[in-house]
């Protein structure tokens, strides 16, 4: 019995080791390609280790870093502004409707929930943002339209329900106003929930490229992912902005685009796994009840 159990466990471990290897292969391939020699890739193709070690792609990237830096700036600004403002808006609303003594709570919950049921669609939103709010080709278009996410509001409401109402009553007796209660009591107590939603939002803003694609035309407003997207369909994209003469003649496209990819995503992949437990907590709570 014990023997067979051990063998079974070994088998399961083996399965997961193979599975994990399959999952990381694409990452390793991109990393390996970025350190390859261009000719090696052209002759032998992409592989899971570098085809002839070379830093050419990174050298070229360092000389062409203008767009990359701009995109980093845009992405950081939208992520920070979007996350902070969005959290403020969603937490205040989520808090109000979580209060059992707030009579408009149910009505407002439905008001929020309805937006999940019926959406106007892409075209009217596009007209709203570009024609009526005049946000086309501004940085605001990248985060303002998606600041409030109905699902997250309801998720926050669920979290905030666990704070006992007696706390608010005590605070009120001590003469605290709603704003003070919110900033002094609700925010500190709800920090884990706010952190979860904040990380989900930050990830969403960091990985956003659709808003850039939809609402902006100028290269200075491309987010990192939108820049990568442009490069995927138009390999010359970065080099067109600032042509560089290469000693070897040909532009190292195959390795260069992968190097841009590594520089654009690497930092995120190094940081985010440390926050993984927040994600899993948020996902499991959010999944059970919206």
């Amino acid at each position, binding site marked *: 019995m014990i023997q067979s159990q051990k063998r*079974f*466990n070994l088998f*399961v*471990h083996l399965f997961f080791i193979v*599975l994990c290897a399959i*999952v*990381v292969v*694409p*990452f390793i*391939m*991109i990393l390996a390609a970025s350190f390859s020699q261009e000719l090696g*890739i*052209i002759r032998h*193709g*992409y*592989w899971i280790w570098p085809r002839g070690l070379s830093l050419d792609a990174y050298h070229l990237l360092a000389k062409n870093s203008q767009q990359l830096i701009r995109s980093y700036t845009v992405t950081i600004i939208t992520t920070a502004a979007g996350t902070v403002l969005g959290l403020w*808006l969603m937490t*205040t*609303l989520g808090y*109000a409707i979580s*209060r059992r003594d*707030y*009579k*408009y709570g149910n009505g407002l919950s439905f*008001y929020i929930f309805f937006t999940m*049921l019926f*959406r*106007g*669609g*892409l*075209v*009217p*939103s*596009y007209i*709203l943002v570009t*024609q009526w709010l005049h946000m086309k080709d501004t940085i605001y278009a990248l985060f303002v*339209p998606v*600041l*409030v996410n*109905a699902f997250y*509001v309801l998720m926050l409401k669920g979290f905030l329900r666990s704070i006992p109402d007696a706390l608010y009553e005590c605070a009120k007796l001590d003469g605290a106003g*709603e*704003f003070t209660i*919110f900033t002094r009591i609700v925010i500190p107590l709800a920090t884990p929930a706010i952190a979860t939603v904040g990380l989900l939002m930050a990830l969403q803003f960091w*990985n956003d*490229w659709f808003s850039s*694609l939809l609402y902006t035309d100028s290269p200075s407003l491309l987010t990192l992912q939108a820049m*990568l997207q442009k490069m*995927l*369909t138009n390999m010359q994209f970065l080099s067109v902005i600032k042509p560089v003469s290469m000693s070897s003649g040909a532009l190292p496209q195959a390795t260069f685009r992968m190097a841009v*990819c590594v520089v654009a995503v690497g930092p995120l*992949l190094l940081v*985010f*796994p440390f926050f993984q437990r927040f*994600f*899993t907590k948020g*996902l*499991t709570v959010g*999944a059970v009840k*919206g």
Partner: protein
Amino acid sequence: MSKHLKYFRSSFGLTLLALPAIVFIFIFSYVPLYGLVLPFKEYNFEKGFLHSPWIGLTNFEFLFNSDLLHIIRNTVVMNALFISINVIVEVAVALLLFELGKRATKVYQTVLFLPFFISWIVVSYAVFGFLDSDTGIVNKLLAAFGMDPVMFYNSPGYWPLILVVAHVWKFLGYGTLMYYAALMGIDAEYYEAARLDGATRFQQAWHISIPLIRPIIIIMVVLSIGNIFYSDFGLFYSVTQDNALLYPTTDVIDTYVYRALRQLGDFGMSSAAGLFQSICGFIVVVLSNYAIGKISKEDKLF
């Protein structure tokens, strides 16, 4: 009347706190609902929404053109594939993970979760590295075995499989963790009792684990079915590199609407397709909510 006014006044602080978000939702979720009448107009930038002329059902003519049939089919069929394959793979992996000790699973969980953090764009780069006709890993391997190379980016037939693999790869960690968390919530006594009765591991999984996480499986599936008319835009637009040769199997409602809007500037057709999507989506959500209600009342969404 005065009672209402009094309550309104006494709760005004709370209302004021929530007001900015309420206004936001109104602007960005309710105002776009005017889009419901947009397809019946001939939208004109100069005249604006209000002064654009009504044109009746002209914009819906595309509904009767065969183009639409295949984008609806692609949308629904691909989503159905994603939902069914994802749930099977994720539950299976979660059950296996559940068999192992806690510490080992941490490492596996973290690794499996990695693809969740990257965008579809980065996935597109990886897919390109595998499938490019000249330099892709798959073709190099095929050549090594003496087989003919495949021009993946010219062959729509392969793409349902490619997209399913990409989708499973990206969400494997996410889904697995969800089911794993549900498994962790099961009382250990069930398993002890089963072991005493001599149940094998497979029997334990089949007769205890799966029945007990069934509610969450059903909810996840029904929630995804509610979105069956909406596609993951990045997957269908970016991973396929918006390649027209692949449209027969990869063009979905969202990519179609986007192209009609951004490339053709055809507001009429794209808003009509959008309305069609909203209505179908709404019907499916209501139906799936009804289905949830049949299965377990308290998990109903509304």
